[in-house]
């Protein structure tokens, strides 16, 4: 079984300040980890992924995430937040075991980010 936890329902940050959205995961095999962002009444937009390799992953719009195996975490970060980053952020995991095709993503509960001017 695989699961994802996003411990914060909402994160408030001032524009220009660093932004961190927390995510921890649980899988039986090697984790494949993803971050998506959702704007109101829109689909999920891919930000970045960790499959293997460097623990620090860089993605779209200045976002990055750090994979920490010992803490089973994959926190999303942005050094300087923008008002336009205000949205709902989802962490997701895919178990590395099993067939490569069609494996489901399991999402965390989502974290609402509010960046204030």
């Amino acid at each position, binding site marked *: 079984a695989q699961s994802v936890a996003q411990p914060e329902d909402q994160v408030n940050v001032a524009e220009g300040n660093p932004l961190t959205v927390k995510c921890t995961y649980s899988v039986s095999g090697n984790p494949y980890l993803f971050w998506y962002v959702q704007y109101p009444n829109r689909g999920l937009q891919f930000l970045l992924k960790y499959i293997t390799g460097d623990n620090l992953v860089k993605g779209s719009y200045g976002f990055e995430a750090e994979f920490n195996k010992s803490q089973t975490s994959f926190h999303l970060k942005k050094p300087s937040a923008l008002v336009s980053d205000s949205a709902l952020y*989802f962490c997701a995991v895919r178990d590395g075991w099993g067939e490569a095709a*069609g494996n489901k993503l399991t999402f965390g509960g989502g974290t609402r980010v509010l960046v204030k001017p």
Partner: protein
Amino acid sequence: AAGVIQSPRHLIKEKRETATLKCYPIPRHDTVYWYQQGPGQDPQFLISFYEKMQSDKGSIPDRFSAQQFSDYHSELNMSSLELGDSALYFCASSLVEASGSISEQFFGPGTRLTVL
């Protein structure tokens, strides 16, 4: 760049009616996924298809069925609709790469189903 297309974008049905949602994946993508997102909820996996065969199954009710066609588009058929089926239904697609590397799923804009 081409994205995942879903139709219709909005659908209103009465209880016990049927609904069909369509998904057109990104060209050359061979895998399609369906997710259901209730109000204030995270997306929940329903079912997926790879090369027209069901590849994984989640919490999809028996009243729902889906398939992937020869042109890789997919349809989610929902019967005996209930009030609780009101949700945003997402389709996503991905490509199984020859190297075996894992590609991300690209999501469509969703179909908002309202059951009255």
